[in-house]
């Protein structure tokens, strides 16, 4: 098996390949060093910061509205699947701590076709996810406007779309021109969110167990316990678990990756799973199904109002704005890394990894992230965006598990992970089955859009990069 990538794409570019030495604090190439600057806190902030916006602030209304308290089980199922994938991803990431995350592992483990499909789907999946976060942001902004007395009656959907589009444009422009260190800000926002949520959920649990009494509105709709509905909601809310793979896209910049990558990925999945399940439990304990359904995307605001009065509503609105912003921003950052990984391997024109001389930012990649995000955000379709994002990620997750099994079998000489998933092939096989299995419970339209995206990326491979060979290379 070749140790180096080979072949050329339609433009005649070959993948960039060189031997590098990885240390705990830097990647050392022939003539230069790349500092590893993201620590465990930074990694957790990327993972938690990306995930928490959707699961806590957007989905409780939608999921709880469909099946009531049973949605807590849906979130638990999602968390278990995420964990089954996070473990194999950790092993791959510690063996290949490079930018690009899932794309890198799959292209090396399963070859160029799977790599191209996943690399481009990762990009587009992140685009769908970012658009979804932005629409969530739009709903929270609408509630914030209502809170200060600017109620928007008719045409509120259009207002949400407009806000989402403006926010998408703002994030893209800020990312191209901004050189401030937003990572520190991100860490602070995540810490603030977590403490707000712990306080809020703690109070909600006191209420649930009857230690504190608040007025819960009456309602009759019963919870829907049943494997089918629970799994179908799990497929919908799986978008709340996409963040841990974003940690892998910055694997090349993590300090001491052998230790910090697994901790950041598994730690962020476990953290958000616990918070999600609690949030659903609290929300569905206070409101019945129909009440949640009518409150929609921002049902948590009503939950906050019921628990703590106007102050509670305000906390949730501020939290929702911060959380959806941090999700969107973190996703745009990982998107540019995903595009870079693909373009370095000559699967996209090299132009895509251009760097702007004035700002030092990858403006082409950021534009390729921000442009489609704005278009999708304009649709305002929360459920469709979320499910297509989940679909594209689930394909990648399943294939990452398969890639782990394949790469362990082929055992290239360089494969020496610091973290090894225990139990042989059990975890990756279960992870792959669960990831692919969950797709079956999605809405048909989402599946069709997802398959169309995959087909388009495969078409791109046959058109542009058929001669590039990446399998088994480092």
């Amino acid at each position, binding site marked *: 098996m070749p140790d180096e990538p080979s072949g050329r794409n339609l433009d005649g570019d070959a993948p*960039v390949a060189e031997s590098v030495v990885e240390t*705990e*604090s*830097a*990647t050392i*190439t022939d*003539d*230069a*060093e*790349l*500092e590893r*600057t*993201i*620590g*465990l*806190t*930074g990694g957790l902030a990327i993972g938690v910061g990306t995930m928490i916006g959707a699961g806590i602030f957007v989905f409780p209304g939608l999921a709880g509205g469909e099946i009531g308290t049973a949605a807590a089980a849906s979130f638990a199922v999602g968390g278990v699947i995420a964990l089954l994938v996070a473990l194999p991803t950790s092993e791959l990431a510690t063996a290949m701590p*490079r*930018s690009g995350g899932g794309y890198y592992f799959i292209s090396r483990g399963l070859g160029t076709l799977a790599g191209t499909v996943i690399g481009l789907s990762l990009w587009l999946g992140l685009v769908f996810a970012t658009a979804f976060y932005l629409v969530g942001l739009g709903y929270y902004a609408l509630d914030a406007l209502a809170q200060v007395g600017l109620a928007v009656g008719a045409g509120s959907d259009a207002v949400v779309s407009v806000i989402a589009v403006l926010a998408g444009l703002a994030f893209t422009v800020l*990312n*191209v021109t*901004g*050189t401030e*260190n*937003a*990572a520190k800000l991100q860490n602070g926002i995540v810490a603030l969110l977590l403490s707000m949520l712990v306080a809020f959920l703690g109070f909600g649990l006191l209420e649930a167990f009857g230690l504190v009494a608040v007025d819960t509105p009456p309602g009759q709709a019963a919870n829907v316990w049943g494997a089918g509905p629970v799994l179908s909601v799990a497929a919908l809310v799986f978008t709340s678990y996409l963040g841990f793979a974003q940690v892998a896209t*910055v694997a*090349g*910049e993590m*300090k*001491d990756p052998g*230790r*910090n990558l697994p901790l950041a990925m598994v730690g962020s999945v476990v953290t958000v799973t616990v918070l999600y399940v609690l949030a659903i439990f609290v929300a569905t304990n206070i409101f019945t199904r129909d009440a949640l359904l009518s409150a929609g995307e921002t049902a948590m605001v009503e939950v906050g109002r019921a628990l703590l009065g106007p102050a509670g509503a305000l906390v949730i609105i501020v939290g929702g704005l911060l959380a959806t912003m941090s999700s969107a921003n973190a996703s745009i*950052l990982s998107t*540019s*890394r995903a595009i*870079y990984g693909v373009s*370095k391997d000559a699967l996209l024109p090299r132009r895509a*990894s*251009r*760097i702007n001389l004035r*700002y*030092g*930012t*990858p403006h082409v990649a*950021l534009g390729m992230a921000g442009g489609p995000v704005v278009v999708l955000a304009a649709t305002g379709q929360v459920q469709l965006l979320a499910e297509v994002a989940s679909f594209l990620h689930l394909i990648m997750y399943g294939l990452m598990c398969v890639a782990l099994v394949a790469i362990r079998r082929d055992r290239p000489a360089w494969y020496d992970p610091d973290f090894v998933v225990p139990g042989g092939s059990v975890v990756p096989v279960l992870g792959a089955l669960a990831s692919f299995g969950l797709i079956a419970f999605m809405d048909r339209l989402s599946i069709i859009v997802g398959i169309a995206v995959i087909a388009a990326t495969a078409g791109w491979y046959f058109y542009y990069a058929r001669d590039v060979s990446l399998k088994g290379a480092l």
Partner: protein
Amino acid sequence: MTRVLVPVAVLEGGSVSPGLISLLGAVDVTVLGYHVLPEQTPPDQARLRFEERATSALEDVSQEFAAAGGAADHRLVFTHDREQTIRRVAGEVDADAFAVPGTTGDVDRILVSLSGDVDADRILSFVEALVGDRDVGVTLFLAAGAGMVGDGAADAAASERPVPTGAGDGADARLAAAADRLREAGLDVDAATAAEGSPFDALIDAVPGHDAVVMGERAPSFRSFVFGEESERVAAASVGPVLVVRDRRADDESDEDVASAADDTAPAADE
């Protein structure tokens, strides 16, 4: 051999002044070319784009150092965090000091600060090696009240007698001993103390008449967190180059723990 790390913002027109190059003529130099990237940009991506240009600029700089006398090599790093990179590379090349480049012409006299909890012994050794047998004057400077390293008696005296002149006695003796040591090594030495004001302002007031400053590395403190590294502030206020002598007392004490300590501090370092 004494080694100095000279960080240069290689792609942002960062350069090294001729005065600093000749001042470092008697010691070995590692030129650290760095490029700080916004977090949106993967370092690897910047490397593919800028590596050639950076390397050629860096080779020019290290040739200038080599022409001035000492051995010179260079490293190129793409990073999101300049301080972390300087710390890491300084440790890896086992540098005795690192430079904060500033502008200066020919260096006739340098100001050596011994204020604060710094490794005075190492600073003096470094100054001996730096000056060598050249005709460069040295002014030893100590801000009274700041005390001196490893000088328990002076610290105690300072706390018993808060009057600045009283605290100065122990400091004066230390300063005299340090000056004698450098004179024995054949250097032209003056000594100066400052009685009042903050040690930082006093040091800046003493800068006129000197072309470069040598000072010790200080442990990060609340003050450095708020105002930035002391050495950076001295460099900004004095315009000229600053050489910071690394504090390696901690390394000496726990050489065997270094590996595990590095492990433990890694996650905390990004706070």
